[in-house]
């Protein structure tokens, strides 16, 4: 997972919880907003109810004033009616004001209809006359007028308490509500007044349609009647629209049964709250988006880009461009530190590279010099060897030749001793010749370049034995060679080595009647080893360390011929192959010479 993915996932989880909490908060807020709206609804209803109540009180005040009015203290119906008409003009909130005689007969009438009316059975009349209540309030829906009014009655009394007349003012509920409803009505809000029976007295809007109808029995009516435990009720279908209703009875005049109903469509009520919620959620989403985008960009700039710079520089450096640096600018903080440190490290490594380079060049130069020196030395050696092979031999040949000539041509002039001396001279020269030859061989062994190839040692051994047999037919040793022994090495040098070893075996077993020479392979320390074994004179193991020394011999010259160089040559050859050579022997029981060659690879 990339750093970016990790960080963004981390961010996601880090922001998820606050986001969820915020989301929950938003929902909570919506709920409380809804509750507040409902409370507001209830308050509206209560406000309206209070307003109505205040109007009733104001009417009572009016009545009290009117009860003192002289104009009403008269039996002149016309006069007091006129008076009342005047009052009515000034109080257009009433549909009519009239007085009622204590017997219930309509007397003065602001409407000046002159009609006779018995209102004794009216509730408000009776309540007004009731000493305890003194004010009669009754909502009435006039079928004829098609309007709802609130009858407010007050008994004017003499000083002794005897009722003079009852004043009645009919509050035009429609007008009253209209005024107030107008400002409150919003959207689908509905304001209505119902009486105790459930008859709709006023209704806004749609007044004419509803007024006069009854809501009795409907759930709304149910709600309206409940004793205001619940300030609002939800979803009471009325008129086809889901509304939330609040109801309020008149304070002080609750028993009139008059109730204010305020209803707002659920959608409207919730609209604001929902809109707020949606706005808040949208804002949250945008904020999250911004945060993520910011995080993305930040990761990109701070981490990925910087990481990219580091990676590019490292790759270039490892690719061999040692002058690469990450370079300025270094961002603040740990990454910047890292970059700075890395550039320093690069600088150090670059310098080291240069140093190494310098050392290398120096080394190569020295090696070249040494090689040149070695080559020169080799050349000198070669010239020396050539010189030896030519110049030293010639005199030897002369010595030997003329000694022989003497022996032959002057045999008659020489006695036994003379002949013997000459024979010794000859022997010595031949010995010297052999020595020169061996030394030359040894030096050639050291000089020659090794050319590795696969060599069939078995076949080589057979060939050497065959040659020895041919040149020394007087010996007939038994020869046993394992088949198929192959090894990696320089064919020429290995031949010289085997010639020496087999030649030695031949020589030192020559005195045996049943001479036996063996060539085979074995294992030593897990590696293949080769051996030449004979059952000849053997040697004393005490002197084993001297075996391979130059000119070292463990035997008398009279016993066995030899210059003592053979084994030294063998050792040098084997060593040049990276191998080891050693011997085991027992006096008069034979000797075994082992050698290993280095393993390729």
């Amino acid at each position, binding site marked *: 997972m990339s750093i970016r993915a990790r960080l963004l996932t981390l961010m996601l989880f880090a922001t998820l919880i606050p986001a969820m909490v915020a989301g929950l908060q938003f929902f909570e807020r919506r709920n409380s907003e809804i509750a507040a709206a409902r409370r507001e609804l209830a308050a509206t209803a209560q406000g309206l109810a209070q307003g109505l109540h205040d109007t009733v009180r104001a009417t009572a005040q009016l009545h009290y004033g009117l009860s003192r009015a002289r104009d009403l203290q008269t039996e002149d119906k016309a006069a007091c009616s006129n008076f009342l008409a005047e009052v009515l003009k000034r109080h257009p909130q009433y549909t009519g004001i009239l007085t009622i005689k204590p017997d219930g007969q309509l007397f003065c009438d602001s409407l000046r209809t002159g009609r006779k009316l018995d209102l004794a059975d009216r509730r408000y009349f009776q309540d007004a006359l009731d000493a305890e209540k003194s004010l009669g309030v009754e909502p009435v829906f006039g079928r004829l007028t098609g309007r709802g009014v609130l009858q407010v009655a007050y008994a004017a009394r003499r000083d002794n308490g005897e009722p003079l007349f009852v004043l009645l003012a009919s509050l035009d509920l429609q007008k009253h509500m209209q005024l107030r409803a107008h400002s409150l009505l919003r959207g689908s809000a509905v304001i209505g007044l119902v009486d105790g029976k459930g008859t709709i007295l006023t209704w806004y809007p749609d007044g004419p349609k509803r007024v006069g109808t009854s809501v009795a029995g409907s759930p709304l009516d149910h709600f309206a009647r409940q004793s205001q435990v619940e300030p609002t009720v939800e979803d009471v279908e009325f008129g086809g629209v889901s509304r939330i209703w609040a109801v309020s009875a008149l304070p002080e005049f609750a028993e009139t049964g008059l109730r204010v109903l305020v209803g707002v469509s659920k959608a409207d009520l919730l609209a604001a709250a929902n809109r707020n919620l949606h706005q808040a959620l949208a804002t949250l989403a945008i904020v999250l988006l911004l945060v993520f985008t910011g995080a993305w960009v930040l990761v990109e700039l701070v981490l990925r880009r910087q990481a990219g710079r580091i990676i590019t520089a490292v790759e270039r450096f490892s690719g061999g461009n040692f002058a690469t640096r990450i370079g300025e600018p270094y961002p603040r903080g740990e990454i910047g530190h890292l970059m700075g440190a890395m550039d320093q490290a690069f600088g150090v490594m670059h310098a080291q590279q240069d140093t190494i380079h310098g050392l290398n060049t120096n080394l190569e130069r020295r090696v070249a010099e040494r090689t040149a020196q070695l080559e020169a030395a080799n050349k000198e050696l070669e010239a020396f060897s050539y010189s030896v092979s030519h110049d030293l031999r*010639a005199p030897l040949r002369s010595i030997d030749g003329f000694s022989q000539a003497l022996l032959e041509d002057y045999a008659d002039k020489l006695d036994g001793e003379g002949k013997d001396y000459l024979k010794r001279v000859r022997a010595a020269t*031949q010995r010297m010749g052999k020595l020169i030859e061996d030394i030359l061989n040894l030096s050639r062994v050291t000089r020659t370049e090794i050319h590795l190839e696969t060599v069939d040692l078995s076949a080589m051994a057979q060939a050497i034995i065959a040659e020895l047999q041919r040149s020394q037919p007087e010996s007939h040793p038994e020869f046993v060679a394992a088949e198929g022994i192959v090894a990696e090495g320089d064919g020429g040098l290995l031949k010289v080595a085997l010639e020496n070893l087999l030649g030695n075996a031949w020589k030192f077993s020559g005195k045996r009647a049943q001479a036996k020479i063996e060539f085979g392979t074995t294992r030593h320390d897990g590696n293949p080893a080769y051996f030449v074994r004979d059952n000849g004179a053997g040697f004393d193991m005490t002197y084993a360390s001297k075996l391979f020394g130059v000119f070292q011999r463990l035997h008398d010259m009279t016993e066995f011929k030899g210059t003592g160089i053979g084994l030294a040559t063998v050792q040098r050859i084997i060593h040049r192959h990276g191998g080891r050579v050693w011997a085991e022997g027992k006096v008069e029981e034979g000797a075994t010479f082992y050698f290993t060659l280095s393993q390729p690879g």
Partner: protein
Amino acid sequence: MDNKVILLVEDNPDDAELTLRALKKNNILNQVVLAHDGVEAIDYLFGTGTYAGRDTSALPSVVLLDLKLPKIDGLEVLKQIRAGELTRYLSVVILTSSKEEQDLINGYQLGANSYIRKPVDFNQFMEAVRQLGLYWLVLNESVPQGR
């Protein structure tokens, strides 16, 4: 067999003496012309210098050539022998004490017919000479004279 001449090119008087003795001992009685260095050898073969006026059509049957010679060395002599029209097909036997492989190679490269190493042991030397004589003078067919 008697009219076959041997040209012996040898600077070492001892070696020359021994070679002559060896030839005699082996009954090789042909005339031996001795050249002490490369120049003498060339002079003889081409009829120049000390041998000016010699009949160059009369060539030796075999040249025994030592390599290490003063003035011009043996290989140079060989080169000139092979270059000369009359001497081109001469049988040249390099008779030298050098065991150097490079001399061997060079010798054959320049067209020597044979390469023999002088052994230190005189008996062996005698044997070598005997075989030499037998082969090159008796057995081997050289290019006929006058060609």
